[in-house]
């Protein structure tokens, strides 16, 4: 239910409504009622914690002068050098400024906006245009990399050392197993080379970046989390070497980590502590510090809501069907890695759209036919899966970018593109700034009959409406594995070892 909420219309309001229900029912802080961050990627949690998505590190509030001063003190810089005079510029706005030419340099690391961002034709124009210099840093030459001015080959997860934090706050250490191939370097090494070249200095003239290794960077990050909800101060590479990952906060009070948040109904809402003073869920208008303080939250949860509004684009005479995009279980994001995994790629090798049997009949479309799907912004030509999508709606998986052979070309007239985001809208949630990928309008027409069923997986949500018409998706060869002795996981509720620290038990009984 992740992206179904947070990439859909009124995303934050819908997510907040779910949280409201849990709070009202007391469904929090006990087994079966845990809290997980709504994230698309396993390490998106890290991004949010450390400020890689534009916020300040450690869930600091850019609108809180004291938070900015604390950070400036930690880094030994003048507070005014830390951008906090406006809300963080989100990715959708950055692309808007790059289009205008007021941002002239884009550095894109480990993501593939040419396929993953809405309204692909617009994104391609921005990336390919001369108004903005584009650097792309990735494991493989992606569709975005093909449009870049400079490509920096980066190391993959097994080729570098660092920590990952998953949506349950559990921090894991991942150590380098092999060296990166060729000229590839770890992201850390690339960014350090950039910092050296830029000669960043603190206010006493010393180098701003004092760390060189992943472990030193981790220790600097730990210091940045002191006193914040995301407290890593009690963690170290040594602790993370085993036997298992550890969920934050980890500090003097909870040296073994914290399995469960909010066992007491106290929340990080205090005005001086909170990450944000909040927003109007309809407009994104910022709540001011004074307004927040007047609510006297002091650890109480706040219930917020807003009235329903219809999605920005509704089906019409010209575009009579809903258009929605999403995922299949076999591919991840824009297939940068999964298209290179034979078993996964064989299970879902090619793009498709799902159409309801009633709509298929009305448009004269059968399983496997080549169809053209159009919105006011673009078109795709893919094979049809007559499936279980609701009547009046068309579903397209967003994973499938350009054919690598045609990466340098715009989709030819007649629409060779298979990329679902050709059709989506440039609009985002007013609070979270997530683009809306789930709501648009489209029309469908048959291009020609198919020579067999679509290759959409039969084992996932894309299962065909009529099972007899399509051969089942099968797995690849069995993988080889060996059984290793199971370590004693101290945080495993099913484990036998009692928790090491009595303090950890408080509030659980």
């Amino acid at each position, binding site marked *: 239910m992740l992206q179904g909420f947070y990439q859909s219309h009124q995303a934050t309001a819908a997510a907040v409504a779910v949280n409201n229900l849990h709070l009202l029912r007391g469904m929090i802080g006990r087994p079966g009622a845990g809290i997980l961050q709504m994230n698309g990627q396993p390490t998106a949690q890290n991004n949010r914690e450390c400020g890689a998505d534009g916020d300040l590190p450690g869930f600091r509030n850019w609108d809180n002068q004291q938070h900015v001063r604390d950070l400036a003190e930690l880094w030994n810089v003048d507070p005014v050098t830390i951008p906090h005079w406006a809300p963080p510029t989100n990715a959708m706005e950055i692309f*808007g400024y790059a*289009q205008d030419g*007021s941002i002239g340099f884009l550095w894109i690391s480990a993501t593939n906006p040419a396929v993953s961002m809405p309204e692909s034709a617009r994104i391609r124009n921005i990336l390919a245009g001369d108004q903005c210099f584009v650097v792309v840093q990735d494991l493989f030459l992606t569709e975005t990399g093909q449009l870049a001015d400079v490509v920096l080959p980066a190391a993959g997860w097994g080729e570098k050392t660092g920590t990952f934090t998953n949506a349950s706050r559990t921090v894991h250490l991942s150590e380098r197993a092999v060296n990166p191939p060729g000229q590839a370097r770890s992201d850390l090494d690339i960014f350090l080379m950039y910092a050296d070249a830029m000669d960043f200095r603190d206010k006493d003239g010393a180098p701003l970046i004092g760390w060189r290794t992943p472990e030193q960077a981790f220790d600097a990050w730990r210091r940045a989390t002191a006193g914040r909800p995301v407290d890593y101060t009690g963690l170290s590479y040594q602790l993370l070497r085993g036997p298992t990952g550890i969920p934050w906060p980890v500090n003097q009070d909870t040296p073994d980590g914290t399995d469960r948040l909010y066992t007491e109904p106290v929340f990080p809402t205090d005005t001086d502590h909170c990450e944000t003073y909040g927003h*109007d869920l309809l*407009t*994104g*208008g910022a709540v001011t510090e004074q307004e927040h303080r007047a609510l006297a939250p002091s650890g109480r949860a706040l219930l917020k809501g807003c009235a329903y509004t219809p999605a920005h684009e509704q089906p019409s005479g010209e575009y009579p069907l809903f258009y929605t995009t999403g995922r299949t279980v076999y591919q991840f994001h824009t297939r940068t890695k999964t298209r290179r995994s034979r078993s996964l790629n064989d299970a879902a090798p090619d793009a498709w759209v799902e159409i309801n049997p009633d709509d298929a009949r009305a448009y004269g479309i059968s399983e496997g036919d080549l169809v053209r799907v159009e919105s006011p912004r673009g078109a795709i030509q893919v094979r049809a899966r007559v499936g279980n999508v609701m009547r009046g709606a068309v579903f397209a998986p967003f994973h499938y970018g350009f054919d690598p052979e045609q990466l340098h070309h715009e989709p030819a007239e007649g629409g060779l593109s298979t990329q679902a985001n050709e059709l989506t809208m440039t609009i985002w949630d007013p609070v979270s700034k997530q683009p809306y990928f789930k709501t648009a309008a489209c029309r469908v027409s048959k291009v020609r009959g198919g020579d067999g069923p679509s290759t959409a997986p039969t084992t996932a949500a894309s299962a065909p409406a009529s099972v007899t018409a399509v051969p089942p998706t099968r797995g690849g060869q069995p993988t080889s594995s060996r059984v290793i002795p199971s370590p004693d996981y101290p945080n495993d509720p099913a484990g036998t070892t009692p928790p090491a620290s009595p303090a950890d038990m408080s509030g659980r009984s």
Partner: protein
Amino acid sequence: MPHVATYVRLAQHAEQALADSFRTVAEGHPQQADIFYTCRALAAMSDAHVAALKPLTRRYQEQTDAEDLEEPERLHTAGLPAIRQGQVGLLRDLQDLHLLATLVQTTWTVLAQGAQGLRDSELLQVATDSNTETSRQLSWLVTRMKAAAPQALIVAP
């Protein structure tokens, strides 16, 4: 109470001017997707205030002698006739919307005072509810201006 009718009409005109101006800014900056959609949503908010006020406009007009309905000079404001180009132009347009919304808000404040004096709970309800939503419009305008300002002032072409 002749001037309550005058202020009811002022509220109506000012809200209508604000609604139209939100639409002008929306249509004029379609490449700024959030401006386009949010301004249209906020225009609809002002439209709803005008609609809520309509029966009261009629009632106060009927209760007031024709000669008392003569309005003082320069009472009404004109909305934005057209948008300005570019990032700085957008910033200036948002400032104009803010000015208009401030006029709307103080008009509701004044009307709420009159409504309390008259014990007119219907008018008081409309004035209070509308005022709350005008605050939301103002809050978004300030937030959006703050977001737009650094880029517009320093690096916009």
